[in-house]
C-alpha cells in the first residue's frame, strides 16, 4: 500500500500530515521524496542514521580518441555537451544521463562514470522506518534521487510518501504507482488555485484521492465549495490553531501533544482504505 501526501502549493502541511499519520497508524515506512527540501527528519529527529550515496551515469570524453566531430553535442537534447576547437566539454549539471552521446560517438570516445548527486538517509524512530533523500546543493535534477528513495518501498507494508510541492516532473515521479493520494491544501485563493492544478495532474494519473484542509478558518470557503462541486472527498479538516503552529515550529508532531488527533488520523486511514476499495 502506497499513500502519497502531495499539495500543489508549498507549505500547506504535507509533512505535518505525513508524519502525524505515520505516528497514528503504527510502525510503517515513511519516505520523504521532497529531496530538494526534505523536512520529515526535522519532526522525527533521527539519531542513528545510515547514509548511502546516489549516483547517475555521466559521460566522460577521452580527448585522445575524440575527433571533435560534434555528433554527441548534436544528439544531446539537454545542451550538456559543447564541442570546442580543441576539446569536448560536458556540463554535468545539464546532463540527464540518457546515454545517447556514448551510443552515437563513432570513435567510442565516450564512457559513462557514476557521479554523486545526493544521498539517502535511513533510520528507525519509534518503529517507523524513515528514508529521506537529500539532493546535493546545485544539482538541478531531483527525479533520479526520488526514484532511488522509492526503491525503499516495501509493497506489503503501508508506505507513506511525502511529495515535493508543485505539479512538475518531481511530483509525478513521486505520485507514480501510488494507491491513494492525499492532497493537503489551505482555505485561501492560493491554496484553491494550486489544489485545482494538482487535481488536474492526479486525474491524469487516474489515482483515487481526497483532500485535507489545513489551517481551516484562516481564509474563505472556496476550497470547500470546489470540493463539493467536484465531488472530491474531504478527508480531514485541521483547524488553524496557534498551538499546532508552535509545536510545528519546535519540531514536535502535534499528535504527540494532542492525543485526540490520534483517533482522527486513524479514522481517516480507515476512510482511505474504504475509498481505495470502492475505487477498485
Amino acid at each position, binding site marked *: 500500500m502506497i499513500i502519497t501526501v502531495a499539495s500543489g*502549493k508549498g507549505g500547506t502541511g504535507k509533512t505535518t500530515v505525513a508524519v502525524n499519520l505515520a505516528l497514528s497508524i503504527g510502525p510503517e515506512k515513511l519516505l520523504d521524496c521532497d529531496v530538494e527540501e526534505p523536512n520529515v527528519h526535522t519532526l522525527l529527529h533521527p539519531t542513528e542514521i545510515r547514509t548511502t550515496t546516489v549516483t547517475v551515469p555521466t559521460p566522460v570524453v577521452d580527448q585522445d580518441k575524440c575527433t571533435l566531430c560534434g555528433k554527441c553535442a548534436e544528439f544531446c537534447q539537454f545542451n550538456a555537451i559543447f564541442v570546442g576547437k580543441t576539446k569536448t566539454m560536458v556540463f554535468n549539471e545539464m546532463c540527464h544521463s540518457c546515454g545517447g552521446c556514448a*551510443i552515437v560517438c563513432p570513435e567510442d570516445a565516450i564512457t559513462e562514470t557514476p557521479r554523486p548527486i545526493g544521498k539517502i538517509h535511513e533510520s528507525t524512530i519509534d518503529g517507523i522506518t524513515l528514508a529521506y533523500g537529500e539532493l546535493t546543493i546545485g*544539482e*538541478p535534477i531531483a527525479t533520479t534521487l526520488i526514484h532511488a528513495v522509492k526503491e525503499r518501498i516495501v509493497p506489503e507494508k503501508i508506505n507513506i510518501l511525502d511529495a515535493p510541492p508543485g505539479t*512538475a516532473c518531481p511530483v*509525478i515521479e513521486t505520485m507514480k504507482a501510488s494507491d491513494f493520494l492525499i492532497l493537503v491544501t489551505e482555505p485561501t485563493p492560493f491554496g484553491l488555485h494550486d489544489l485545482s492544478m494538482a487535481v488536474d495532474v492526479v486525474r491524469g494519473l487516474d489515482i483515487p484521492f481526497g483532500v485535507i484542509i489545513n489551517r481551516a478558518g484562516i*481564509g474563505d470557503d472556496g476550497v470547500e465549495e470546489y470540493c463539493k462541486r467536484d465531488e472530491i472527498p474531504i478527508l480531514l479538516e485541521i483547524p488553524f490553531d496557534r498551538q499546532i503552529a508552535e509545536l510545528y*515550529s519546535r519540531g514536535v508532531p502535534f499528535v504527540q501533544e494532542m492525543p485526540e488527533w490520534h483517533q482522527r488520523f486513524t479514522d481517516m486511514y480507515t476512510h482511505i482504505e474504504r475509498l481505495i476499495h470502492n475505487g477498485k
Partner: protein
Amino acid sequence: MVNEVAVISGKGGTGKTTVCVALGKIAGNVVMADCDVDAPDVHIILNPSINSAIDFVASKVAVIDENLCTDCGLCEEACRFHAITDSTVDPIGCEGCGVCAHICPENAIEMVERQSGNLYDSDTRIGPLVHAKLLPGEGNSGRLVTEVRKLSTQIATDKGISIVLIDGSPGIGCPVIATVTGIKLGVIVTEPTMSGIHDMQRVSELLQKFRVKTTVIINKYDLNLENTEAIERFCKNNDIEVLGKIKFDPIMTKSMVAAQTLPEFAPDHEISHLLRKVWNRILEMLLE
C-alpha cells in the same frame, strides 16, 4: 541595465508571493516576473490582462509507429527513464532524449515537438507582469523560467524600467537554479520553524554557490522567538542581512482573500510600513 531581484524561500508557503506582490506595489515601477511556473499565484492578486500568450515548446516526445514496430523491445531496454513499456511510450516519463529513435532498427520512432507550457506578457494595475504556466507533469520548468526572465528583462528594457522583481518557486532544484543564476539580489522569505530554518540554510547555500548577494526576511517571526534568534545568528555568521521581521498577523491572509496586495488592502498597517522600509533598503543595495 536591468537589475533582477528574486524572492525565494526553500520551504514552500513561507509567504514569498504575499511579500513579493506587496513589494511590487510599493516599488511602483518594476516588471513583475512569476517564475514559480509550477504553481504560479501572482496573477491571482494582480488580475492581469493578457497582451499575448506564447506556446512554450522546448522538448520532444517519442512517438512509435505501430505499423513499423516489430515489438523487438530494444527501445524499452535502452530507455533510461523507464518510459517505454510493451512498445508504448508514457509521454509523462519520456524526457525527449531521442535514444529510442536512434537505436530503433525499423526507424519506427519519431521525435515530435511537444508543448510544455504557456508564457504570458500581461499588464496589471501595478505594472507589467510576465507569467507562465507549465502543463501538468511537464519537465523543462528551468527552461520556462529562463523564458520568463528573458521576456521580463526585454519588457523592462523596452519600457525603461530598471528592476525586474521575481517571485520564485520553493525548493533548490532546476527551476530555482534557473531563477537565481545571474540575478543581482536574492531575498529569502523564511519562517521560524525547524523546517523553515533547515530549508533557508540550503537555499542560502545555493545562492552563495551562484555568488548571489543574499538577504533574509523572517515572516511570522513571533511564532517562535528562539528560532527567530537562531535565524538571526545564522545570518550574522554568514554575512546575510536581515531586511525585516514580519509579525504573524491574519491580515496577510485577509489581503490575499481580497485579492489585493497588503499596501492596497491596509496602507497604514505596520507591516505595510515595514515593507516600505524593506524596499528602500533593497534599492540602496542595488545601488551599492
